[in-house]
């Protein structure tokens, strides 16, 4: 009879560091918050292989001990410290383990066992090799144009992996399986595609080899439209050997707007000379494009950002220090916001426009009790990023100044997996309506279509995404035309694209 075991797993940041030490997979997506912030996840995620180990702790150890194949799919990220339900179903020789969030699959694992086969190797001696401290880095063009196939010495700390597994309630996971998952993680995160990889799935089967401590990788697919990379990997280490097909996505770098890319949509002018514009969320994506577009119309841009100082510095170099004034503060922190606006008041006197462009990165979820805490956090953070700076800006606004509120076309064509995003954007439109009724400002609500930003930099997210420069040009042209009456107006997705 199938056996169902409902449980939860939670993996902390310390577990992630221990797995990185034991496996050698030090990909910055798992360890470096500033790197992870510029990915669609917005923060560090747990190694998929570590999630698999913890989840397999819920399966029957005897079935795992005679595993013949393991199929894993990493569908959504697992964040450190959050609790995820795990279900385990066992029937005949098949074990299926599923990690979920808000009722949606996060990681699925299918194990086919053969109880007549000899069991996987019991505990073995660790075999270690010096691991590199930073990953290799390939672009999709490198992998598409030249065959990439090589082998490296590889070893992992089985003792550390075993104690880590035990701490996660997975002491029953065979040592051989820990070695396979460790090697798979290293192959994708450190070898190929390396730094910009997102591990999507694996099919692993035991093999045999007389070799000792090598890991061979060979790229068989590199798809330049979606970033899909398929790697055949072979762990060769006696009885712990395994053959693996590993799927990953390579994340290209999101292009930063510059004078040339903006110039395709907006001619430089001095239409906004003498105007002071403050952009919240100015270092990346649409905020950066808007800052550049306002600067190209000769406005003085107060470019507010929280974290990405490197991107903000690049923005200022591109559009000129005389036009771009950087303001680094956390828009969700009232004290930091007040101090930043005190500086604007002292240096600029007032503001002619404030653009509320910052938003937390969205994620896949559902209207489900398990998803509510993250959903409420998202709506709260999104609203705070707009309302805290807005309340500081209101006393500084000149007569007939503009308030620009970044909503989304998601309010017209509602994506199934983003209920939190739709609620958050609707709340911002509510704030815009209030301001239109009870301030003298011109309030512009913008509903951009899907754009290529760090938040949408996913395999299908990039397809049919509109350049941020096109949207920014339409918004700045509307502000520069100065034709809107006080009150509320809306720039729809269609209006933004038709220009």
């Amino acid at each position, binding site marked *: 009879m199938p056996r169902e075991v409902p449980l939860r797993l939670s993996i902390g940041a310390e577990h992630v560091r221990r797995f990185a030490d034991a496996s050698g997979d030090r990909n910055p997506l798992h360890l470096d918050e500033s790197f992870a912030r510029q990915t669609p996840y917005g923060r560090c995620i747990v190694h998929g292989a570590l999630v698999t180990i913890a989840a397999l702790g819920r399966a029957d150890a005897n079935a795992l001990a005679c595993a013949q194949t393991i*199929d894993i*799919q990493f*569908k959504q990220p697992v964040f450190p410290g959050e609790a995820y339900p795990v279900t385990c179903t066992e029937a005949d020789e098949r074990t299926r383990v599923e990690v979920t969030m808000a009722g949606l*699959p996060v990681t*699925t694992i*299918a194990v086919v066992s053969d109880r007549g086969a000899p069991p996987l190797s019991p505990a073995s001696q660790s075999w270690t090799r010096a691991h590199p401290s930073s990953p290799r880095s390939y672009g999709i063009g490198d992998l598409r144009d030249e065959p990439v196939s090589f082998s490296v010495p590889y070893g992992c700390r089985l003792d550390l992996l075993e104690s880590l597994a035990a701490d996660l309630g997975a002491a029953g996971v065979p040592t051989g399986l820990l070695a396979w998952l460790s090697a798979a993680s290293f192959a994708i995160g450190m070898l190929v595609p390396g730094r910009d990889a997102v591990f*999507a*799935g694996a*099919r692993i089967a035991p093999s045999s080899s007389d070799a000792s401590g090598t890991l061979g990788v060979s790229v068989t*697919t590199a*798809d330049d*439209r*979606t970033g*899909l990379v*398929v790697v055949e990997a072979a762990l060769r280490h006696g009885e712990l050997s395994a053959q693996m097909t590993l*799927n990953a*996505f390579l994340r290209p770098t999101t292009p930063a707007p510059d004078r040339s890319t903006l110039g395709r949509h907006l001619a430089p002018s001095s239409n906004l000379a003498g105007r002071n514009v403050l952009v919240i969320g100015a270092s990346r994506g649409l905020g950066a494009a808007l800052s550049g577009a306002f600067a190209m119309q000769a406005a003085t841009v107060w470019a507010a950002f929280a974290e990405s100082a490197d991107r903000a510095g690049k923005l200022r170099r591109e559009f000129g220090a005389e036009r771009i004034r950087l303001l680094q503060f956390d828009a969700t922190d009232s004290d930091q916001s007040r101090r930043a606006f005190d500086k604007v008041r002292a240096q600029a006197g007032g503001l002619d426009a404030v653009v509320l462009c910052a938003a937390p990165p969205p994620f896949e979820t559902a209207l489900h009790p398990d998803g509510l805490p993250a959903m409420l956090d998202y709506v709260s953070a999104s609203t705070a990023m707009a309302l805290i700076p807005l309340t500081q800006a209101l006393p500084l606004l000149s007569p007939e100044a503009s308030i620009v509120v970044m909503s989304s076309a998601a309010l017209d064509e509602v994506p199934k997996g983003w209920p939190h995003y739709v609620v958050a954007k609707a709340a911002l439109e509510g704030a815009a309506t209030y301001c239109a009724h009870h301030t003298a400002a011109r309030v512009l609500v913008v509903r951009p279509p899907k754009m290529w930003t760090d938040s949408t930099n*996913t*395999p*299908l997210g990039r*397809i*049919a995404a509109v350049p941020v420069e096109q949207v920014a040009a339409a918004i700045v042209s509307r502000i520069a035309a100065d034709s809107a009456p006080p009150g509320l107006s809306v720039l729809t997705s269609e209006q933004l694209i038709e220009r």
Partner: protein
Amino acid sequence: MTREQIFGELSGVFEEVFGRPVELGEETTADDVEGWDSVMQVMLIVASERQFDVRFESSEIANAANVGEFVTLIESKRG
């Protein structure tokens, strides 16, 4: 290659990608098949291109509404 033959070979592609047999009909959509998400969509497209020796445009990757439309697209690519 007839439409029926394309359906037959496509079933093999789905089985390879999903690791299990998947029942396909003209009207089958991603919502009907457990686990058919955006990642699996990409895997299916790339595996189908290899199977049928065709290449899809970026805009075609996310657009087919159901399996029947996808088969029609493969037919048109093969000419």
